Structure formats: C-alpha cells, structure tokens
C-alpha cells in the first residue's frame, strides 16, 4: 500500500508540474460554465429544478470530456517511461507492476476527481444562485461526480493498455485518439443508424440495451439519465434509458474500471524493458 501511495504522490507531483492538473480543471470548469450559461434559456415549466437540468446537460458533456481527459493523462504512462529510459530501473525495485499501475491510477483519478468536482461545482453554483430550489438536485450532482470518476477510471485503464501496447508515446497518442473517437462518437452514430434502419424492430428492443451497456460511455449516460429526474429534459439516445434497469447500468459502470485495469496490467506485464 505504501508503495502504491508513494507512486501516486510522485505521479501527482509530475502531473501538477506538467500543468495537467490546471489543464484538466480549467477545461472542466470552462465547459461546465458555458453549459450552465447556455442551459439557463430552456428552463421554466419543465417541472424540475435548475440543478437537475444542469446535471442532465453536464452528463452529455462528461461523456465526451471525461474519457478525453483520462486518455490524455494516461497515454504516456508506460510509453513515456520506456522512452525516457526510466522503466528498467523502476522494474528492478521490489514493487509489482500492478502496484505501479495502481499508483498511477490513484494519482490520475485524484486529478480527474478534482477537475470534475470543481467543474460541476461551478455549474451547480450558477444553478443554485439563480434558483435556490435547485439544492433539490444535489443528489444527482453527487451521482454525476462519482460516476464520472468511474468512467474516467475505465478510460485511464484503456490509456495504460494502449501505452503498454504502443511502447512509444507518439503511437500511444494516436491509438488514444482512435479509441476516443470509436468509443464516444462513432459507436453512438452506428447505434443511431441501426435504430433508424431498424424502425423499432428486434434490434431496438433486444440488442440496443445490451449495446448501450457494453460501452462504458453509454452506460454512464444511461445510468445518470435514468437515475435523474431530468430524463425529460434530455433528448436523443437518453430515451432508451427507460428500458434499462438502473442496476444494470450501475453494474456496467462498476465492472468496466475493473476489467480495464486488469487488461492494462496484463498488457504492462508483457512489456520487456
């Protein structure tokens, strides 16, 4: 445990000095505030508090931004050590590769948690400031924060895997962009196309819920939208959230980080310095 903590402290320090903490936090706060400002228009008679509306918009933001930040922070984790030549020495220390990865994960998760807490917090402040009744939505804000951290953990693990497989930071960066595009953009587009061509047939009723749960980003969206009272405020694919029991999306959200870190550890074990 001490070894994991020591690794995490070093990694956090490095990320702080490399401006990752300020970049991640700045990005989240900026986007969240833009959303909060833009979200002030369509309120009125939707029947929910301002904060729940904001959380619904933040969910759509987090689906794109959290995986992106996680991949950006993690793609260098192993490949960077290989390129700098620091890995051989590190691996001769009495510390397991799992401990090294968990240390890095802990540091990166802390940064991500800080960034989403400050970002969402800023948007929540705006909401509560303009509508005191919005404190009713605090529970959904809290849910959004921890589920964002879990989503981040999944993509951090994916980043470590790519970093181990590529062994060069440039290659790992390319793979990270590809994974982000496929997982958060193309996957949904493909589902949408299938829904349209299916016209409410077997695909939409049978395969779609499974397809949504199989993608961590979609599971995150479904979980937050079905849990929040603000489902009505969100459109698009969120409508499918009705048909998926909340325990299923929660399970997907919890299992993905474990699977992702397990795969990352297996990939890291294959790296010969």
């Amino acid at each position, binding site marked *: 445990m001490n070894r994991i903590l*020591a690794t995490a402290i070093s990694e956090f320090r490095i990320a702080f*000095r490399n401006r990752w903490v300020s970049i991640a936090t700045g990005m989240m706060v900026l986007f969240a505030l833009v959303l909060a400002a833009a979200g002030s228009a369509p309120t009125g008679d939707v029947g929910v508090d301002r904060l729940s509306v904001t959380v619904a918009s933040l969910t759509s933001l987090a689906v794109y931004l959290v995986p992106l930040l996680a991949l950006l922070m993690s793609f260098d984790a192993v490949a960077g050590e290989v390129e700098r030549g620091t890995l*051989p020495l590190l691996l001769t*220390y009495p510390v*397991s590769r799992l401990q090294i990865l968990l240390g890095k994960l802990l540091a990166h998760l802390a940064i991500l948690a800080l960034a989403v807490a400050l970002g969402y917090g800023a948007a929540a402040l705006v909401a509560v400031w303009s509508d005191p009744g919005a404190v009713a939505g605090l529970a959904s804000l809290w849910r959004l924060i921890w589920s964002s951290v879990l989503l981040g953990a999944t993509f951090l693990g994916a980043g470590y895997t790519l970093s181990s497989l590529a062994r060069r930071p440039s290659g790992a960066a390319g793979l990270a962009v590809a994974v982000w595009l496929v997982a958060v953009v193309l996957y949904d587009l493909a589902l949408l196309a299938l829904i349209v061509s299916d016209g409410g047939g077997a695909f939409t009723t049978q395969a779609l819920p499974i397809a949504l749960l199989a993608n961590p980003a979609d599971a995150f969206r479904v979980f937050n939208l079905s849990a929040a009272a603000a489902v009505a405020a969100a459109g698009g694919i969120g409508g499918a959230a009705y048909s998926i029991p909340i325990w299923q999306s929660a399970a997907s959200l919890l299992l993905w980080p474990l699977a992702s870190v397990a795969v990352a550890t297996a990939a890291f074990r294959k790296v010969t*310095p």
Partner: protein
Amino acid sequence: MTPTLTISRLTKRFQSVEALQDVSLCLEPGKRAALLGHNGAGKSTIMKIVLGLVPFESGDVSVCGARPGSSEARAKVAYLPENVAFHPALTGEEQLRHYLSLRGERPSQAMELLARVGLSHAAQRRIGTYSKGMRQRVGLAQTLIGHPRLLVLDEPTSGLDPVSRRDFYELLDGLAADGTAILLSSHVLTEVEARTDRILILSGGKLVAEGTLADLRTRAALPTVLLVRSAVGHEAALAAAFPQGIPGKDDVLRIACVQSEKLALLAGIAALGQQVADLDVIPPSLEDIYSHFSRRDGQ
C-alpha cells in the same frame, strides 16, 4: 561462503542472434567483478538477466538464493543502468524519497544519501536541470538505499570526472567491505585494474577469460617490451647485439620478448655496460590482455 550470484550455463537468444552462450560465473559476498567486452558483447544482457528484466532460454541463475526478478531477489539487488534517467520534473530529493519508499525505507534518508554522493546543494532542483554527471550521482545514490547484497552497475563511472570516479570507487570499497557483491562493467580499463578483484572478459556472447589480472597476464603470455636507449655513438653496436629489436625514434631500440626470456635478455643488456644509456621494462597492459582475449575468437 554461499555465493551471492551464481550463473551456470546461461544461454540467451534474440531471434537468431546468440546474445549469450553457455556463460557461467560465480560471485561471492564482498567480491568485486568487472565485466569487460566491446559493445554488443553481452555485458548489459547478463546484467538484465540477473535483474530479471529479460527472460533467458536455458541455464540457471540464482541471485541471493532466489530466482532473478522475484520480489525476494529484487529486495536485495540494486541496479545502476547505463545512461541512467529520471523524470525531469522531479527534484533530486523527491526522486530519492520515492525510491526509498519503494524499498520500504524511511524517505527522510534522501538528503543523507544525496550528501554521500556530493549532491546536497542541488537537492531542491529539478533533475531536468542536472548535468549528466549529476544524474549519474543520483543513480549512484539510489543504489545505496538499504543494504543491497548485490550491486549491478552498468558503466557506472561514465560521465563522472576523475575526482568523482575516485570517490565512487571509495564508496564501492566500503560496500564491498560490508559484504556486498559488486558486478560492474566499464570501458575504462585502468580503473577496473586497480579496483576489482576479478575480471571477466566477454566476447561475442561467450565468457572468454576469467580471473585476477595476474592470472590473465600469465595465461595470455603476451610479450614484455624492453625499451633500450643507446649511449651517444653506440646505436649501431646495440642494434647489432639485438637483431630482433626494432629501432625507433630517439635512438630507442624496442625489443619484445616472452616472459621466460626476459631475465636472460636483461642480463645481456646489462653486459653492454656504458653503451646503454637507459632501459624501460613495459609489461603487457590490461588493454593488451583484453584485446588478446576478446580477439581470440576471430573478432
């Protein structure tokens, strides 16, 4: 005494290239062994196998009685890689605190370790601003953490100035006296000559010679060179007395002889009396011995 490191019949292949063939060696506690060999001879490969960083095809390797790379072995072995690198964003002190924690030692010892390698003044500076010699010293400092039973040092003195080299070997002497076994590689043969107990010469992945310097000198049986300077006007007489000699500049005659002929030859030179102005006896250097063994396999 139980050896700290035992390697027997070790073979390692990189695709079709035989990086190491049938290498055996043994290192007792408190002994310092130097691995010599040109680039690609297999020095770093042996070290990485001992550290458990690289798998091997056949043979046995035992590090402090454990499998190389096992957590038991890693707890007792310290390593200094060739061209050691650290994260440039950390300071020297932060880097050492991290390494101390990884070895389960108190992080507060970092400053003491930096002082031992003469880096106290730069402890709060980022390693990115360090010179190569300073990074090398951070590398040395981390090998001193805890009480390693085996030190594996790959070109440890590269980038160090002559004074730092001397300090470094004094550190090693202290560690060896406490029972730490040391396996190091170097290109600077003169320092290896004075500071190690045993020399291992690798060539093309094979261990071609092993022993103390005196052993290797006897085994190589390289010629000793006598440099004889004639007195003014006696050059021709000297050259006639030793027809095997090769005349050089400054009236110096260079005579090579095998060890067994040396004394007879010296007597012959002494007999010339006033005709000889000066005499130097040059035994084969470590460079000569090294070249002799590493070229024997047609290199």
